[in-house]
């Protein structure tokens, strides 16, 4: 039996993402501290045995805020990816399979969205909607579906000419049935890879918006806002900015490694091992 193996870096990506999920899901069990509990006398304390990541300017435990912040990153990332993937795939599949005027209209619509750099459109939307967790997800969803729509359209355009689609059509299958039962399972690979990279993008975008004060609002812990607060004390307490930064980097690195690994794994030209 010949099979392809996920590269070791892909497994490392899985481990990093698993750590993110564990931190997010089991935050109350991983730390005894409340991420909002203040201890002003202990403000800016360096990492110690009782507080392994130190305390911020209000004396809140950084480790607890890091674990609870993982919830925000993961929640925003997963929700945005789920919505954009569904929306983008539906629009792209419709455009690719139907062609004609609908395809032209949908593709010109995507061109308009692509005219804005992602972060700028997200910023403009946050200026309209106002800062909040729900609005961050809405803004990222409006920005993020375009990539999936473009990719899906391209994949469907190729797939619809395949013999298995012609055969399905000959049996009298309807367009939605062919798309859902035959084409989508065959184009799922590249979409999963794209979703993995997109998760990294969404985590960074959420942190970036929070960093600018336009995302999740205090006192809710978010890695981006923690980094922004920590930046003011770079000389006195560098760990306040460095630790959330490392957390963001590891989460993004995990997504990128897994995405690279999956892409190579799914590539038919890749090495096959016995």
């Amino acid at each position, binding site marked *: 039996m010949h099979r392809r193996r996920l590269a070791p870096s892909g497994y490392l990506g899985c481990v990093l993402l698993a750590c993110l999920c564990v931190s997010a899901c089991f935050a109350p069990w991983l730390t005894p501290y409340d991420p909002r509990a203040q201890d002003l006398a202990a403000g800016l304390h360096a990492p110690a045995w009782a507080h392994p990541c130190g305390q911020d300017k209000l004396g809140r435990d950084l480790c607890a805020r890091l674990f609870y912040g993982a919830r925000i990153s993961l929640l925003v990332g997963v929700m945005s990816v789920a919505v954009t993937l569904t929306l983008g795939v539906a629009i792209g599949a419709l455009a690719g399979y139907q062609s004609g005027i609908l395809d032209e209209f949908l593709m*010109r619509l995507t*061109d*308009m969205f692509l*005219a*804005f*750099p*992602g*972060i*700028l459109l997200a*910023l*403009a939307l*946050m*200026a*309209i*909607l*106002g800062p909040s967790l729900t609005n961050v997800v809405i803004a990222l969803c409006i920005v993020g579906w375009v990539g999936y729509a473009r990719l899906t359209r391209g994949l469907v355009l190729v797939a619809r000419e395949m013999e298995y689609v012609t055969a399905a059509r000959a049996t009298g299958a309807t367009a939605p049935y062919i798309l859902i039962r035959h084409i989508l399972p065959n184009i799922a690979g590249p979409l999963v890879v794209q979703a993995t990279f997109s998760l*990294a993008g969404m985590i*960074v975008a959420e*942190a*970036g918006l929070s*960093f*600018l*004060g*336009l995302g999740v609002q205090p006192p809710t812990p978010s890695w*981006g806002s923690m*980094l*922004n607060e*920590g*930046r003011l004390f*770079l*000389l006195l307490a*560098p760990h306040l*900015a*460095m630790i*959330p*930064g490392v957390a*963001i*980097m590891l989460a*993004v*690195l995990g997504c*990128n*490694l897994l995405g690279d690994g999956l892409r190579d794994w799914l590539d038919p030209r890749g090495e096959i091992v016995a």
Partner: protein
Amino acid sequence: MQTVVLRRLVFILPVVWGVSTFVFLIIHLIPGDPIDLMLGETAAQVDRQTLRRQLGLDQPLWRQYATFLQRLVHGDLGQSLHSDRPVHTLIAERLPATATLALAALCVSVGLAIPLGVLAALRPRSWLDTGSMIVALLGVSMPNFWLGPLLILVFSLQFGWLPVAGRGDGSLPYLILPAVTLGTGMMAVLTRMTRATMMETLREDYIRTAVAKGLTMWVVVVKHALRNALIPLVTLIGLQVGALLAGAVITETIFAWPGLGELTVRAIQQRDYPVVQGCVLVIALTYVIMNMMTDLLYAVVDPRIRFEA
């Protein structure tokens, strides 16, 4: 070539229209009364009416849109609510700083990425290849809002070699940290792409012929392989330049760099919507124009595109 230029120009017209319409709608999409947001609910009725008239919000929507487009054609982007100065003047003052930063970041990224990518492709699976790919992966994964403070901590606060923030007198030391921060992401993407395209090009028959002719390695790599590998890189660089302008929003905020990005963020925080509209419009249009120029440049460097057109 003229056909390609004309086709691209016609193609971007609906996009430009879409961008300007979205920018017009920014104020109208705000939930509730935008005047409440800008002045606060406790503002005097006279002030509210004056602002409403100044922004044209007392007119029917179609007339507001027509006036907006008419003013836009004349380069009039309205008045800032905060500083009471014309928006186009504010943008014109900030644009050179952003352009300088984007250009410096481009030099940093291209200057590092191409040699790194070429060396990695020449020695695949060597320590050099692994090292450059690790650098590239870290560069992709490291958000600029973390890299910036990290560089400030090391090079400004610990060693005191470079200034912490601002543009100072416009000299080079002020530019280094923001440019490295902004250029790192692009450098990482370009390194990976250069490596991939060079590895593909080095497998071509004409490279084997060039080597068989007895040409030196330098000539084969630079004159034969790199020149051909550069074609897809041109597209990527063009697309990334547009992205640099957007990335500058965060980098300029970190380094208090007086550019368009910093102006945008400050305008959003101050709810100065005419400035937000102006900045979004200028950045998006620059992005569209950069993408169009990339397409045209692609046609210049690759004759097949011209002939297909």
